[in-house]
């Protein structure tokens, strides 16, 4: 892997990212040259109107989709140079994912869901279990570790997903509209928790959202319009 003194590198850096869907039929220019750098420990929201390219950008950064042009580096690694197989492993070991829904395996308990990703990383069973319990405690689900997703509320399920995302010790956590299906109380709780993990574990979070209350909690807000960065502002928020 072409990685150069990874630890000094920005967590994420993109250069002129473009993405064209259906280039042969009716081309959709989802991204039109996105240059972006995200450093360790950021708590960043990607916002913008529907169809502005938020999901597309997150998918490319997350190694789930390939850009049409430009480059994406994760800690200095140009992920477009990775083979399919390498990319899967890269996602497993470097990126934490929280999706809007369907994050969990329905037949596994919260504990098993969190352990599962560590087991795939090949870590010893004892470590998987202990670390999972610790993380589930951190996200406030101490008494729910043996519940299955169907026995948990939407907000609790998302918290298990966050615990799972952290369990693999990723370089950063990507969350595409993690609160879209949550009520305002659960949204606030999830955001509190993510902010706390950001502080305590120094974990980098990048999330997309439409929700103004979520935007208000971000310390950096990148606004996309028509596949371009329209504004990029740092801000201070009172955590609490």
């Amino acid at each position, binding site marked *: 892997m072409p990685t150069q003194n990874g630890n000094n590198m920005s967590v994420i850096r993109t250069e002129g990212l473009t993405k064209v869907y259906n280039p042969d039929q009716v081309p959709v220019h989802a991204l039109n040259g996105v240059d972006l750098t995200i450093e360790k420990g950021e708590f960043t929201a990607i916002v913008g109107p529907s169809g502005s390219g938020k999901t597309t950008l997150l998918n490319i950064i997350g190694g789930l989709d390939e850009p049409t042009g430009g480059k994406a580096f994760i800690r200095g690694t140009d992920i477009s140079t990775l083979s399919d197989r390498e990319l899967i492993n890269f*996602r497993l070991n470097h990126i934490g*994912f929280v999706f809007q*829904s*369907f994050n969990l395996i*329905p037949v596994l308990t919260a504990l098993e869901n969190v352990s*599962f990703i560590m*087991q795939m990383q090949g870590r010893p069973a004892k470590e998987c279990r202990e670390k999972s319990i610790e993380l589930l405690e951190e996200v406030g689900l101490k008494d729910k570790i043996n519940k299955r997703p169907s026995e948990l509320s939407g907000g609790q399920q998302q918290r298990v997903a966050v615990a799972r995302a952290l369990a*693999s010790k990723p370089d950063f956590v990507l969350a595409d509209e993690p609160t879209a299906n949550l009520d305002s109380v659960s949204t606030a709780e999830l955001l509190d928790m993510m902010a706390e993990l950001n502080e305590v574990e120094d974990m980098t979070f990048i999330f997309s959202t439409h929700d103004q209350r979520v935007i208000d909690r971000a310390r950096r807000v990148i606004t996309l319009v028509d596949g371009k960065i329209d504004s990029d502002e740092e801000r201070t928020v009172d955590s609490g």
Partner: protein
Amino acid sequence: MLKYILKLGWKNVWRNPTRSGVVIITVLLGTWAGIFATGFFNGMLNDYIKGQINLTVGHVQIMYPEFEDLYNPNYAIPNAENLIRTLQVNPDVDEVSGKSVATGLAQSARNSFGVTIWGMDIENDTSVSVRSIKGYLEEGDFPEAENRNQILIGDDLAERLGLELRSRMVLSFQDVSGDLTAGAFRVAGIFDSFDSRFDENFVVVNKADLNRILGGKNLTHNIRIDTDDLMTAGVLAEQLQDSNPDLEVKSWREIAPDLRYVFDMQDLSLYLVMIIIIIGLIFSIINTMLMAVMERTRELGMLRAIGMNKSRTFSMVMLETVFLTLVGSPVGLLLGWLTITYFGASGIDLSAFSEGLEGWGFTTMIYPSLALKYYLNIVLFVAVAALISALYPAWRALQLRPVEAIRKFN
């Protein structure tokens, strides 16, 4: 195999109990049907072979070399009594029966028909050749030695010639001096075997009567030997041929090539039956497992997205099918064995279809049976079928592109 993938595969089995139940029952029924159909077919072929052997062919036959060409009654076996006595003490021989044989015309007032006439010592011969014909007697009695010229005919011949019990009929054939001769017989009994060809073409009379009309004393044209094993009949035939170079000794394989064909093809036929059932099984498993995969598009997409590699995804889906098979197959095996054992003892009565079957020489009671090796092979086949049918759904699970699957989340 990784333990947590095993565990997940097992848990996936129980996420949709109805569907898993369908697969389990499919596997169970497939295994059962495979066993039952094979056992049934095996029993049918065994009965067919055994019935034909008992009724007409026997295991080994001894004749004068030229006799078979024209059925010239002069070609009787010389010193047949002595030969029969030595055969009776041969340890490889179970039963011996000597008969005189003629071919001729059976006539009634209404009609005539070409038949083979067997002159048998009906009263004293206790061998299977006489026993099996006696077993098929439907009306009347066996010809008795003190009543001259009684005859046993089949129901199909009776119908053709318009004969009933105690009807009179005439048999005409060539005698030892080459002249045409005839005898009037009275129908003592009518038999109805599983084979309508036999019932039409063969008649049985007392050996003494036939020999008297043929004009020879103690003529024996055919010695039939039965052993305890069809397979070794050939060896016995060769031995007897060596010790009786002037006679012609043939095993059932030479006498009845059609039976030999059925016998030799039996194995193959049984495997064909199995394979047909297994193919049906494969398609129904593929169908259900494909549903299971398609239904989990989003979940599989999520797993691939967070970093589950192809071999793990593949194993997970494969294992699910393997588990389903592991539950269904042994139960089907047990049920199959029970069914075969039960019907193997009580028999399955097919007399409702007997006319069609008799035309083909099949018996109407089928006793299914199956050797252990077939049970083992069926289980093996089902296991292979399950693996094959898991391949395609598992492969489809790999074709899924995580981005597309994830797009569907939102």
